[in-house]
């Protein structure tokens, strides 16, 4: 009576196929903790080289037989990764549930499109403007609502996402339902022109992702990151210990929003055309799924999650109509088999086990001898 249905074919019913992976990950993580600086840099360089050769057609013909691989790498994969890293700040680091993250993506995109087409601003200026506007709207949204607890925040952010989309859809100043056409491309960098070939956008995306990752890691290791962890684990205790929780939550919202805005700006620079339907609620849900699937709070996990969620539907274009169905089923199955995500951070894993991290455990569950929550600790 405890989820064994799912794993009944295994010889040892307690183990599911992911526990071996989980063990392997732990070994790798231990190595990483004790790795020397040069070893770490080797890994960084390896990651960058990997990212650079990823668009190669040889890889693409396997990875994406149905659509152009480099385009797929920019959108959805790259864009999802950028968004997921941003949402991870809010959900994974500060433990706030945001179901309207797409709003900031939209704000970034619309700023680039609007100021680029109406006032012919430089692309980079419009991106900065988009980031700033996203941060401001993050604060505007957060200020009245961040005092709300978890689930109320979820519905309010969901509402905010819809408000932004519907407003864009009905505001003629920004094109209404027509959207904005002929969004300017970024100006050339080092002689590389940004036209319709997706490759330069891919490298731009890589730079953006790298910067955001560095930023995010630095934050996590700073006083701010520790404050977020404290809030995530026990908000009341954090407040009592002198952490100004409201300010830090607002900061998390603003920073997440800025990253979302950046993603919108990069996206709009390539897309040529944006419309309100580019920013539906389901995109918020998808990005959240990427964060949780990968391992909320752990950057490599989040990136992996976003990659998979962006890539799998493209890879399985052969299944055409059925791929969304499969996507939904995989989410349910993954959460049943590995609710902590593919690559959870160890700390988060411990938190989740105690039911403190993020939004806490579901109600109506009493930990007891049959609860599998403790099964993995013993390995």
């Amino acid at each position, binding site marked *: *009576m*405890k*989820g064994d249905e799912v794993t009944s074919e295994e010889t040892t019913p307690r183990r599911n196929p992911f526990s071996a992976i989980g063990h392997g990950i732990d070994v790798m993580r231990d190595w990483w903790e004790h790795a020397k600086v040069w070893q770490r840099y080797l890994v960084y360089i390896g990651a960058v080289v990997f990212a650079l050769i990823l668009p190669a057609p040889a890889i693409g013909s396997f990875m994406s037989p149905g659509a152009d691989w480099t385009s797929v790498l920019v959108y959805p994969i790259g864009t999802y990764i950028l968004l997921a890293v941003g949402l991870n700040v809010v959900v994974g680091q500060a433990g706030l549930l945001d179901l309207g993250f797409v709003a900031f993506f939209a704000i970034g995109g619309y700023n680039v499109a609007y100021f680029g087409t109406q006032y012919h601003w430089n692309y980079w200026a419009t991106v900065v403007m988009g980031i700033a506007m996203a941060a401001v709207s993050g604060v505007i949204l957060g200020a009245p609502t961040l005092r709300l607890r978890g*689930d109320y925040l979820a519905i309010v952010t969901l509402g905010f996402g819809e408000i932004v989309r519907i407003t864009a859809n009905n505001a003629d100043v920004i094109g209404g339902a027509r959207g904005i056409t002929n969004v300017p491309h970024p100006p050339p960098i080092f002689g590389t022109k940004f036209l319709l070939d997706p490759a330069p956008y891919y490298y731009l995306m890589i730079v953006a992702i790298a910067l955001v990752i560095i930023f995010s890691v630095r934050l996590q290791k700073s006083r701010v990151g520790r404050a977020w962890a404290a809030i995530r684990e026990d908000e009341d205790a954090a407040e009592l210990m002198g952490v100004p929780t409201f300010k830090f939550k607002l900061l998390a919202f603003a920073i997440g929003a800025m990253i979302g805005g950046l993603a919108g700006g990069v996206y709009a620079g390539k897309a040529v055309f944006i419309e309100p339907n580019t920013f539906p609620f389901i995109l918020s849900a998808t990005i959240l799924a990427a964060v949780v699937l990968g391992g909320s709070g752990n950057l490599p996990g989040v990136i992996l999650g976003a990659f998979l969620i962006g890539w799998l539907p493209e890879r399985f274009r052969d299944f055409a109509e059925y791929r969304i169905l499969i996507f939904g089923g995989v989410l349910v199955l993954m959460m049943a088999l590995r609710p902590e995500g593919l690559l959870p951070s160890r700390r988060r894993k411990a938190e989740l086990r105690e039911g403190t991290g993020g*939004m806490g*455990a*579901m*109600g*109506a569950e009493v930990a007891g001898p049959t609860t599998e929550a403790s099964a993995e600790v013993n390995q």
Partner: protein
Amino acid sequence: MLQDFLNQILPSTVGGLVIGSIYALVALGYTMVYGVLRLINFAHSEIFMIGTFASLVLLTAIAPAAPATFGIAMIGTLLLCMVVSAIASGGAAVLLETVAYRPLRKRGATKLAALISAIGASIFLQELFALEIIPWLTDKPGRNQASAPRFVPRDELFHIGNAAVRLDHVIVIIAAVLVMIALDQTVSKTRIGRGIRATAQDPEAAVLMGVSIDNIVRVTFLLGGAMAGVAGALYLMEIENTVFNVGFVLGIKAFTAAVLGGIGNLRGALLGGIVLGLIENWGAIFLGSQWKDVIAFTVLVIVLMFRPTGILGESLQRARA
């Protein structure tokens, strides 16, 4: 503007009450599941969708070919629709709980993981219906709108000012209120209802008192699902069309209604649904119908700013942090 307002206020109020009643019925499912599990059951909108299709299939099968008239046959058909939809939706909700939530509960997963599972289940059910079940039920492409025959006549019963109140309006409102009273009585008076309230308040103590959590959770999903099924039957009777993603917008609205009234609070769901339906329609008089959703969410934010636990507050259980 004032003239417009005077002309439209009464008809809009009637329309708001009707759609608000349906919001309220769907909101009950969110509220009950949230009260017991602290889980936003995102797939509840698909439970509602299943209810609309159950009624659709039934209506198509018994095909009331004759022009719709008021009478025993009509009332019988209506009751049958409500029962069939309630069974279909309630059953689907229990199945959903068993497949998508129970394994997570058993592993002590976080609410966040459960939420993702709920979103996954929602996507899965929508697509399953669009690709397989609806074509099988209706012999038409699954993403097309499916239409039901009319069996409740649109007779005008009486006027309130310039607003015509029709038979179908009265049926929706009365049926919704009756069903809700029945549910309220079940939860407050019966043994199983006591179990639900006890679990919502303190699951550990409830277990110690001999309550079977699994049973309680199952019953909660069953009751919430059945309410969504009744809502689906009434919706189909009123709108006479349904489609695989009919639940999406309605589900978000109903969840908003639940939070507005005070999530976990059955009477709050009723109040929230009605308030939401009315405010949307009233706001549309001035701003245009395209702003309905924005009005709804803005009101929600404002209410939560002043009453952080909704209009009536959480009460199926006391608030747990």
